[in-house]
């Protein structure tokens, strides 16, 4: 098994555990006993192959993509889902706060069967900001004999319905409810205009109890007997309706509307949900009968790392739906991470769906190879950013803020998950400042002291107009060159990739939140006050010197230099060494496109046969890199010979080569002759001279030449 497969297996193995642990390069390195540099290289290669996902931040973390997502075509086979049952060592690798997965990975054992605890594990933040809520919910469900009525509080879109469903599944998984027990959901707003109808829906009605009640009819309470009755927007339940629940909640008794006979019996776990302050919206006598109140935090109250997980989750889900890998540009990611999402998780999900739909359209119209979500695809409100994050970037989950809504205790950052969350979000501050886009600055300031973003963090922008990712490459290049200096000064390098029409406004907004030391890019930005250094100047001019000067001049850095960010690993300049089989496949694929007169696959095979024959005859080895180049050369040479094209006249002392290396020369000539015979071409003798030098790894022309000149 190659090193890359070992890394992939390791990440995959984590998927059978509860939640979905993500690994840093260091963790992978220590788990497999390889160097961190190699681990990082393989992880990045896997990421580029679309087999693992990345969670941005410092350090970047990786997790295996769901197996139901096929690898991109041409990928040399995804290994079967890991069968090892063991998850990662919990002591060494803290899993992330649970990442909700829509279903068990195909072929893997159902993790849900492991125990009822895993039901909540699917929720993003189950071990983070939702931990107190989860605990309360578990207590509510398990409380004997039939659980406790529960009120879910939280702004729109926080996932109250989903939470109620998960409570129900937990009740079934823990044996509190029988399998197949009913889960009846009802939105009280649906019949709010007609209280009579609403109550008859809930409690049922006797014939003639009201106009139009032509038959005895059971209500939802009866249907929910032995299960859960979920009442959404419970504040729309009129007072008399609330009162009708009293006997049900107290004794398990109720009557249908208009019924006077014996009371009916139902055992129902009531879960209500509301966006309103229950003190104002519900009768006090009703509230008293609902002992558990669970506050579900809004997106703004949750740590950034959970938002990142949610974004990734929704992107993955859209990707699965489209059967494609979805990638997001860094700026779009920042915007998704930072825009004011009034509608919380629900809105985040629909905004991501809209962006993916737009990106998919572009993909369909042939714009690009994969689905890339860029700023242009984001809905307007995402691009506009919105007001500053109320909790402040990097704030721990809002301490004490939860009090306004109910009895839920806000998460303590003393939990490991909370600590991780804080760490994760704090590291992202400067980048998050970019995402703010500054556009919300007009709308009311931050709460004093609530933000930990240093005022106007210093940044260096790498800018490109295209969607080709030049900005990111430039960023890597600049960081590689000036990493230590940038770290010392607390200057972040931020890639910005924009459409032409967005450049002016977006950069102007950035300038309000960031102290931009310089813009390095492929096009001059319309910002006369900011020094601009072109890529060209960096390469052939004195751009580096100018850039260093700008960084060194006082006043360019932040007022309070941020703690030096830990410099990441030096960017891998070249592609991580690929497996030879990958290279051969790639080679054949490119040659198929450009060879007309010879069959590319045959030529590639015969090319490698030349090298094998030579190795056999001489007992020497040819390194794989050279082999790839030689094969490519031979294929092109065969094509050229078939077309009768001339060879350049290159001086080469073939006789001396033959004289000095008779055995290797003979082997070379024979192997080449076999190649010519099989492909039906004639190659000039010069080719043997080239081939000998490549296979021997000696520049004989230069050696002979220098001897002569000495």
């Amino acid at each position, binding site marked *: 098994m190659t090193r890359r497969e070992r890394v992939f297996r390791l990440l995959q193995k984590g998927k059978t555990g509860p939640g979905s642990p993500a690994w840093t390069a260091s963790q992978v390195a220590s788990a497999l006993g390889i160097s961190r540099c190699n681990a990082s290289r393989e992880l990045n290669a896997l990421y580029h192959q679309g087999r693992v996902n990345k969670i941005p931040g410092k350090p970047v973390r990786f997790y295996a993509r769901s197996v139901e997502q096929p690898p991109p075509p041409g990928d040399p086979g995804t290994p079967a889902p890991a069968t090892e049952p063991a998850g990662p060592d919990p002591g060494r690798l803290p899993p992330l706060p649970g990442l909700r997965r829509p279903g068990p990975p195909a072929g893997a054992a159902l993790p849900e069967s492991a125990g009822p605890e895993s039901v909540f594990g699917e929720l993003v933040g189950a071990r983070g900001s939702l931990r107190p809520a989860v605990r309360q919910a578990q207590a509510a469900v398990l409380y004997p004999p039939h659980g406790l009525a529960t009120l879910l509080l939280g702004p729109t879109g926080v996932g109250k319905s989903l939470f109620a469903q998960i409570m129900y599944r937990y009740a079934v998984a823990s044996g509190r409810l029988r399998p197949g027990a009913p889960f009846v959901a009802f939105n009280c707003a649906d019949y709010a205009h007609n209280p009579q109808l609403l109550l008859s829906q809930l409690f049922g009605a006797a014939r003639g109890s009201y106009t139009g009640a032509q038959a005895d009819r059971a209500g939802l309470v009866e249907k929910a007997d032995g299960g859960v009755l979920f009442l959404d927007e419970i504040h729309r339940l009129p007072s008399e309706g609330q009162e009708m629940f009293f006997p049900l909640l107290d004794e398990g008794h109720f009557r249908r509307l208009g019924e006077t006979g014996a009371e009916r019996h139902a055992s129902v776990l009531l879960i209500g949900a509301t966006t309103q302050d229950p003190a104002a919206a519900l009768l006090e006598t009703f509230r008293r009968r609902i002992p558990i109140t669970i506050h579900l935090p809004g997106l703004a109250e949750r740590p950034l790392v959970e938002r990142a997980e949610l974004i990734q989750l929704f992107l993955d889900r859209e990707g699965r739906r489209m059967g494609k890998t979805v990638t997001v540009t860094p700026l779009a990611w920042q915007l998704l991470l930072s825009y004011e999402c009034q509608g919380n998780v629900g809105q985040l999900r629909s905004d991501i769906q809209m962006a993916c739909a737009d990106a998919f359209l572009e993909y369909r119209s042939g714009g690009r190879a994969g689905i890339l979500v860029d700023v242009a695809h984001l809905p307007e409100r995402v691009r506009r950013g919105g007001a500053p994050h109320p909790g402040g970037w990097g704030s721990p989950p809002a301490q004490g803020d939860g009090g306004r809504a109910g009895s839920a205790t806000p998460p303590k950052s003393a939990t490991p998950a909370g600590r991780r969350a804080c760490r994760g979000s704090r590291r992202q501050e400067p980048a998050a400042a970019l995402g703010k886009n500054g556009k919300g600055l007009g709308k009311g300031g931050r709460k004093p002291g609530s933000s930990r973003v240093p005022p106007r963090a210093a940044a260096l922008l790498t800018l490109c107009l295209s969607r080709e990712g030049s900005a990111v490459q430039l960023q890597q290049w600049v960081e590689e060159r000036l990493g230590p200096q940038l770290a010392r000064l607390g200057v972040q390098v931020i890639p910005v990739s924009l459409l032409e029409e967005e450049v002016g406004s977006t950069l102007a907004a950035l300038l309000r939140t960031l102290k931009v030391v310089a813009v390095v890019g492929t096009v001059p930005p319309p910002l006369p006050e900011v020094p601009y250094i072109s890529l060209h100047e960096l390469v052939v001019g004195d751009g580096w010197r100018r850039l260093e000067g700008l960084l060194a001049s006082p006043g360019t850095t932040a007022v309070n230099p941020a703690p030096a960010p830990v410099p990441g690993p030096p960017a891998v300049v070249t592609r991580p060494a*690929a497996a030879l089989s990958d290279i051969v496949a790639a080679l054949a694929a490119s040659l198929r496109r450009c060879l007309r007169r010879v069959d590319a696959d045959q030529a590639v095979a015969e090319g490698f046969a030349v090298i094998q024959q030579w190795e056999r005859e001489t007992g020497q080895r040819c390194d794989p890199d050279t082999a*790839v*180049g030689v094969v490519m050369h031979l294929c092109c040479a065969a094509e050229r010979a078939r077309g009768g094209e001339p060879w350049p006249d290159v001086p080469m002392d073939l006789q001396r080569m033959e004289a000095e290396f008779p055995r290797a020369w003979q082997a070379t000539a024979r192997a080449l002759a076999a190649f010519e015979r099989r492909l039906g071409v004639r190659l000039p003798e010069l080719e043997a001279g080239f081939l000998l030098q490549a296979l021997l790894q*000696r520049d004989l022309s230069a050696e002979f030449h220098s001897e002569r000149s000495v």
Partner: protein
Amino acid sequence: MSVPAPQGNHPALRVALVCSFGMSTSLLQESLERAARAHSLDMVVEAVGTAEVRQHPESYDAILLGPQVRYARQSLARLGKPLAVIDPFVYATANGEAALRMLLALMPAPVSAPSEHGNAPGGRPSGTPSSRGGGQRRSPRATE
């Protein structure tokens, strides 16, 4: 083969893409030039054989070698130009973008002292072995 420099008075970067007899580099040549254009980088790429580079080293600012002429790395390094062997996968896929990144990473490291060519009109990096030290150090790991 001169292209008007689009930015300031910096001359175009001249790159020698070396293989044996210029046979197999033309694919990459095109894609490398395309990648450079996408980055608004003024760059001229010539697919050449080892002999031509040796005869006219002054014509090139940087040298990229195909993996099959790896053997010539040492002898060509004496020319004192930034030089690297192209990763075989990059070569096989004719990935100009990747080759460009590799090339950019080769270019001289920033100098702290004011450089002597900084103010010269059309100043071109001098290309002496000492000032190219960074370039040599940065030979791509993958091909080592």
